[in-house]
């Protein structure tokens, strides 16, 4: 379950060195509590993607501290050894496009993560079906990704992000390809899942439709975040 969400303190990321060095993140502070959905908004080149990659344990920050649940995952150059296992067990990803594995059916797309973590196939599939039912796509459990609508694919992608019950989910523009109705449906699902599974969810977005739904928003500009209260419309 969720634990203590995610906490980031003084996170900096520098690319290159010497005269050509670029400071992409200049001191990011962030805290997302379990069961909370926050927005991360910023213009192109503001450092959103770099922050997302640092949070996703894909690239190493230069300095700062990241705490995921009860575990310190980065602390001024020190980091957990097995980043692959960290990504698999502690972080859920939902992308702009669903990026489902085209040669696996819906159930196995979701069950793949617990299988990779060593769960027996039957147990992993049971977990997957439970989530697919929660997301109301259980009737497409045997379908291939190419047979699903865009909204169904995104719900399956959310199920995949949640299946290992990670303390945090990183959602990168999850509503970008969807119309208003479907975008709002996805945000509703993210809020429900955050509450149900005590998961901290960070949604990176440009989507004006969904920005009013966040209770808290982090604006990022020139590598620095500023927190502000959101409208929190519709999902109380």
């Amino acid at each position, binding site marked *: 379950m969720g634990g203590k969400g995610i906490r980031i303190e003084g996170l900096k990321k520098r690319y290159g060195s010497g005269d050509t060095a670029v400071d992409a993140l200049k001191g990011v502070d962030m805290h997302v509590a379990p069961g909370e959905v926050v927005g991360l908004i910023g213009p192109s080149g503001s450092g959103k*993607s770099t922050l997302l990659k640092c949070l996703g344990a894909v690239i190493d920050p230069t300095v700062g501290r990241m705490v995921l649940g009860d575990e310190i995952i980065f602390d001024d150059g020190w980091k957990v050894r097995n980043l692959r296992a960290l*990504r698999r067990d502690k972080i859920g*990803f939902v*992308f702009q496009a669903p*990026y489902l594995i085209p040669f696996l059916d819906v159930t196995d797309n979701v069950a*793949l993560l617990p*299988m*990779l973590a060593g769960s027996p196939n039957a147990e992993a599939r049971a977990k997957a079906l439970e989530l697919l039912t929660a997301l109301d796509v259980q009737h497409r459990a045997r379908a*291939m990704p190419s047979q699903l609508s865009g909204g169904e694919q995104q719900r399956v992608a959310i199920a995949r992000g949640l299946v290992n019950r990670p303390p945090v989910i990183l959602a*990168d523009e999850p509503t970008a390809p969807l119309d208003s109705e479907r975008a709002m449906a996805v945000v509703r699902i993210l809020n429900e899942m955050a509450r149900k599974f005590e998961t901290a969810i960070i949604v990176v977005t440009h989507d004006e439709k969904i920005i009013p739904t966040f209770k808290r928003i982090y604006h990022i500009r020139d590598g620095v975040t500023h927190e502000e209260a959101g409208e929190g419309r519709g999902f109380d």
Partner: protein
Amino acid sequence: MISLAGRDILHAWGKFVFTGMGLGLLIGVTLVMAGVYRGMVDDGKALLDNSGADMWVVQKDTLGPYAESSSIHDDLYRGIRAMPGIGHAANVTYLTMQVRQDARDVRAMVVGIAAGEAGTMAGWPPYLVAGRQITRGHYEAVADIATGFRLGDRLTIRRNQYTVVGLTRRMVSSSGDPMVFIPLKDAQEAQFLKDNDAIWQSRRRTEANPAFNRPGVPGLLDAVIASQSTNAYVNAVLVRLKPGHAPDEVAESIHRWKRLTVYTRTQMEDILIGKLIATSSKQIGMFLVILAIVSAAIVAFIIYTLTMDKIREIAVLKLIGTRNRTIAAMIMQQALVLGVIGFVVGKITATFVAPLFPKYVLLMPSDSVAGFFAVLAICALASVVAIRMALKVDPAEAIGG
């Protein structure tokens, strides 16, 4: 854990099957090439087996009668037959030529076999599939069925006509030409028989030579001309040993007393395989190497392309925590499956195509087994490039930005 490779193959089975079929045709050609070499070796061994000889007595310091020309007097076999350890000795001639039948002609090895009792003489075809052995001293023939001749056909060899009285099978020369057996005397004549114009010119030259045409020596000219128009030579004497006699000892004895070269079965096999078909086998070996390289390149290209198509999925798999070895195993398993499909198609193709080749193609199970493992090894090696590329994929590519 589910098999990612298996699921991907099932999802894109058409791509794998059709690619495997293309690869299979290449593997089929490779198996046939190996079969051609095996066929050549088998032809050589069949030639030795079917001759019924334990030893071959040939002209001194030659590799005759199959690899080089050899010429020895046709009365030498009597002396050889009398030597210790010799059970049987028979003259034989070999001559490769075009044998005509009506309007067509067939390349064949004409074998002159000494008269004797059927089944006891070395050099005779050991079995027939139709008709009978040669029973007359002249103008009868037994042909291998690969010549296409039938019983009763009339063959023309030089200026004489022969009737096919028997048909045999797998009687071929070392180069795969089917054999036609005729009586020894006819074969001796055929080997050195000149055309009428040449005979006439030869007589004129002899008549003009004062050494042969002496007024004071009546009959000399006729005797010389008679000696010039007959052939008292054969290519080899085929020898069978008495039980209990070592071939090497008997061969040494003949070599010492008759001043002839003698080859045992082992030595003759070495000549046929090591010398006669050595160049061909090197040629085939080169083809096999080239085909193996081409197959590897094709598999590498296909697997690389298939992997390139999945870069985004691989990035996602890595991002969500898939081990590198799981991704590497997926790519290698796909390459191996491609190899297995290719091998099955290739083996079936080779099996059906081999009998259509004009020369004997021998597909040996051991070659197929070796070929199967070679294909797997090539496919595994060929997948290395794609694996290296997949392992370099940055999981951040799934996030973008």
